[in-house]
């Protein structure tokens, strides 16, 4: 059964900067289905985090969603009052961030920060929240949970902190968990622990996960479906196996080819020349064309639409055929 939990349609986000408005997310559309894990990959600056912050309604003060539809279950997110949105956040949609070092408030104890969410959304008493908090810490595999509740963030290692973040995010049984590069700052052995943890949690709770990353390894480990973003746009969308087997968009192809493989040593890596364009000065037509091996004069003129090559696979390119 495919049942959409979140549906994003033509999302556009812009920031007010000194050079006027800069649009960094330009019509992103995708769905997150119940129970699925959706991965968003893409280069730095391609708008992954901005998309997720827009969903959460916590864009920085100079940013705004200026077009598009955001639906969560039956709610139109863009028309919620501030209060309604607040009740959604942390409760039905939860989020974990990249830097576990800075994502926790350094002056409050772990316990305080955990209890805060529970007391807010479930109206628990302090004692109840404490109990539930300890339970959550145990769920994410923190030994000595009771002691950890009394600790301050700096007294924990990076991996532990990320576990705390996960516990916090899951404490209200959210329907959707957005994880923005949850393991980028961690060492590989710790990353493996966290990825395993996420996978196990998903199996248990049927939470939908939207994971943002630029590590295709992490994607391959975790995701059911993948969205590839480039310069504020979705350039390809496919189920995991299909994407790895049959990447269509030249950017996706390049991305895959340029990762050094741990077990397949080549002499020279494939590389995508050039750099990601500046959002304030986007190329005309297809945004990838200056770096694209297939790019020609046609690509400078037409901004390709996202076309479906199969029911589940779509791409934004006029050169490659499905």
């Amino acid at each position, binding site marked *: 059964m495919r049942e959409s939990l979140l549906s994003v349609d033509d999302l556009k986000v812009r920031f007010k900067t000194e050079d006027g408005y800069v649009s960094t997310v330009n019509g992103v559309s995708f769905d997150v289905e119940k129970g699925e894990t959706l991965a968003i990959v893409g280069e730095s600056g391609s708008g992954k985090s901005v998309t997720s*912050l827009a969903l*959460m309604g*916590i864009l*920085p*003060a100079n940013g705004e969603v200026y077009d598009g539809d955001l639906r969560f279950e039956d709610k139109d997110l863009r028309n919620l009052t501030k209060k309604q949105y*607040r*009740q*959604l*956040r*942390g*409760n039905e949609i*939860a*989020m974990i*961030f990249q*830097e576990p070092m*800075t*994502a*926790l*408030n*350094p*002056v*409050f104890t772990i316990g305080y920060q955990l209890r*805060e*969410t529970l007391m*807010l*959304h479930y109206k628990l008493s302090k004692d109840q929240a404490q109990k539930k908090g300890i339970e959550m810490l145990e769920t994410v595999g923190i030994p000595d949970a009771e002691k950890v509740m009394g600790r*301050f963030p*700096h007294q924990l290692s990076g991996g532990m902190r990320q576990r705390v*973040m996960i516990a*916090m995010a899951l404490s209200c049984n959210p329907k959707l968990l957005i994880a923005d590069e949850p393991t980028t700052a961690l060492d590989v052995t710790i990353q493996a622990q966290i990825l395993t943890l996420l996978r196990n949690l998903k199996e248990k709770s049927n939470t939908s996960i939207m994971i943002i990353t630029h590590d295709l390894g992490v994607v391959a480990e975790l995701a059911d479906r993948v969205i590839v973003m480039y310069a504020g746009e979705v350039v390809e969308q496919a189920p995991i196996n299909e994407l790895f087997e049959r990447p269509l968009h030249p950017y996706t192809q390049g991305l895959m080819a340029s990762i050094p493989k741990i077990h397949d040593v080549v002499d020279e890596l494939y590389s995508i020349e050039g750099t990601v364009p500046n959002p304030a000065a986007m190329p005309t037509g297809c945004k990838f064309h200056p770096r694209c091996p297939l790019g020609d004069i046609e690509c400078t003129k037409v901004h390709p639409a996202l076309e479906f090559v199969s029911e589940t696979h779509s791409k934004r390119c006029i050169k490659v055929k499905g």
Partner: protein
Amino acid sequence: MKYFFQSLLKTIPVLILITLIVFLLVRVTGDPVSLMLPETATDAERDSLRESMGFNDPIMIQYFNYLGDLVTGDFGDSFRYNTDALNLILERLPATIELAIAAMIVAIVISVPLGILSAVKRNSFFDLFITGGAVLGKAMPNFWLGIMLILLLSVTFQFFPVSGRGTFGHLVLPAITLGTGIAAEMTRLIRSSMLEILGQDFIRTARSKGLGEAIIVNKHAFRNALIPVVTIMALQTSTLIGGTLITETVFAWPGLGQLLVQSVNLRDMAVVQAATFIIAIFVILSNLIADLVYRLLDPRIKYD
């Protein structure tokens, strides 16, 4: 506490340096004897006074004598008042501390809400207004503000007594005068400190948990913003005490500041030395305390 005592020990070289600075400042700089006698005094009168006060010894001997006396708590005698300098100062200290604390309270009461508000409403008209006001507060010399306050609130409207120390009313105007400049400084600091904190990841976390804006600002952000502010406040002690020199003179407040101004003018060296030294200790102590508070506020810094 152990940390406190260690820090205390670390201040010893600083204190020794201060004694040297204070001593040199006062001693190298001039002959007090002539100031103690009227214009019509004769040279012979001056000489005998100079000899009797020990100003004819070599400077190093004077310094070591001074240090030696200091260790035994003897700061010398004020020749203006003819009594123990330390006693004079200790008599005045409560008045100055009272004024300083009141001024600090004024500064906090003004700066905390304004600083937070202008950070939250950054770049709004309101922010501009507060920022402008803060700068204005800083741009106005203390004595000028004091005199204006007296003219307005005491002479014209008679809300508060003009000068002196006594009732609570007496404290209001000097505290406002002294507190305003510091409030101005602190408002700006709290604003920028808050702005920095509001941009941090954990604020985003707090938002993502669904917390209300008031809790985010007043609890999550302010607790963090407070940490640098405490340090700044401590650094302001020195400015605060410096400000009493002028404020106390304007308001005839019987504290250390006024005593100092008069003692400097009359070269009452013992008093100047002792007061400067006591003030230095006071400033160092308040910095130490701020350091402790800082450590209490910021769990990231561990004791020892």
